[in-house]
């Protein structure tokens, strides 16, 4: 048990990230949803309606 914990401590955090597909999945979904989709959606919502001629 202690040996396993020591091994885990020795592994670099980036290596642990790369070995964790679920963390990558969450980050891979959240970053574009925030940066592209949500931000872009808010920008579109802030466009005022065009006045009718």
């Amino acid at each position: 048990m202690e040996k396993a914990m020591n091994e885990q401590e020795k592994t670099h955090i980036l290596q642990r990230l790369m070995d964790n597909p679920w963390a990558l999945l969450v980050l891979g979904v959240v970053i574009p949803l925030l940066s592209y989709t949500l931000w872009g959606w808010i920008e579109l919502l802030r466009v005022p309606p065009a006045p009718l001629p």
Partner: protein
Amino acid sequence: MKSEAENEMSDVASDVRECTLGADTTESSNRWSLRTLASGWRKCDSTGLPVCLDAQFFIRINAVFAVIFLLIGGIAAILLALTRWETVNLLPSDWFYRMLTLHGLNMLIFWILFFEIAVLYFACTTLLNAKLFSRKVAWVSFGMMAVGAGMVNTVIFQGQADVLLTSYLPLLAHPAFYLGIILVAVGTLVGVFNFFATLYMARRYRTYIGSVPLVTFGATAAAIIAVVALLHGAIVMIPTFMYSMGWVGQPDPMWYRMIWWGLGHQSQQVNVAAMVAIWYMVATLTTGAKPLNETVCRGAFVLYILFINIASAHHLLVDPGVGATWKIWNTSYAMYLAVLASMIHGFTVPASVEVAMRRNGHIKGIFGWLTAAPWRNPAFSAIVLSVVIFGFIGGITGVTLGTQQINIIAHNTLRIPGHFHATVVGGTTLAFMGLTYYVVPLLFRKDYILKRLARIQPWLFAGGITLMSVGKSFAGSMGVARRTSDIEPAAEAYGAAVHVFLGMLGVGGVLAFLGLLLFVLLTVGTLLIGKSNAGRPMECWGKPVDLGRHDTPSSGGEEEHKTPGTVILVGIFLIAFAVYYFANWTALADVWPVR
């Protein structure tokens, strides 16, 4: 005594174990490890890897359907090329848009997604020594995708969906068109779920030790990007389908464009991740190459996962609804991190081949390793051409056109399809074709017929696509619009020289179609009449000669990783990149000259 083919394939088997493909598998008995199961798997006669029979079945049917859609899309492609070749101008405008819709969906969605599901099933089973999570889930995935694709193609042929791949609102197609796309998207998502579930079970039951192999890691990146793409597909297609049924009002067209490109562009990034994974896999199978630095290669895939999706914004660079900060952040600062990842892969793949060739004694001069490479192997020539076309044409033009300021002189011109035909066709499709030269012998257990023709196929296809992409790019630089069947009404505005470039487009299209047709005929012919290789290694396509100089890491040290040839090639690439980028800024400056 072993035959020559057996000796060469046993080399492949050791390459596979030592390099990119082979996970460190445990022999401990558990209920998910293929090697310890009594049935449901076989040992590959060529590579020694365990093959899950369920996965093999679904890889086969997904691959067969992929090739069918490739052929449909290819037939539409030749009709389109012969229309944009102004001298021929084959199709009337209504059939032009019909074929353009058919071409886009079959080539960019169906061919690619079916093939990618096959790649995912391979990467999560054979490479991890694990059985497929669920045969039922795989059937559901395949059934939804096949029915959806059939619905879409039927509606297009009926002339009720001439809305192109993008189907921008307020253009409206028959509801079956949107429903078909939703079925394909959800079916793909179900297949991706099967992939992730298999990864989970493999890890839980420890069918392998340590990290997953690099190819599986690349496939995981592709699957994550697919989840993002398909989420956007659901967000945009469900309300559009409801609108087409008359249940709700029309969604906002600007909103539609933004969310649709979250599907449309990101589905092409799935291709990029899968293509790079295939580059590494074929480099191993053909030369015994192994990644120079696994951590760097995996780090580059992580950059794809985190940043490649937001590049969708470059499709909206001339849209008025989103601001400059959003555009520049998403298409420049953040996207460049994904570009960096592509450049890392563009270096490490050829560099790993150079190291492998030099290790085998090909140390003469700077490019001796390259001339001695296994050029008789169509899989090898396909991935080399894929790397070159993707990088030199697709990559350089993509980064340049994705720059907000430069995009203003290129948006909606033929330069855009000139760019993405180099990435998606010259890059991805060619890489998929290359892999097929191993998929058929290893998983369908048939040796290719007419090997001489197979050896020229990648060159014919690559030559045609290159000519077509360059012709499109130059015609687009002269202002020729994309998505129009005839430039005659505005021909004088473009000048006579534009016909030369549209002629290049047409001739290139014909050559590429011949290359595609040859690929389909060879592959289908092999499945029908090819010689079975069950019980023996596949016939070797040709491996580099081993000159007997084996430097080991301990004896070679720093010498082991010297790659002067690749460094020079990369230098040429960077110079070409700088020149093209500078030329475009100059062209932009010419639009508003300071007098």
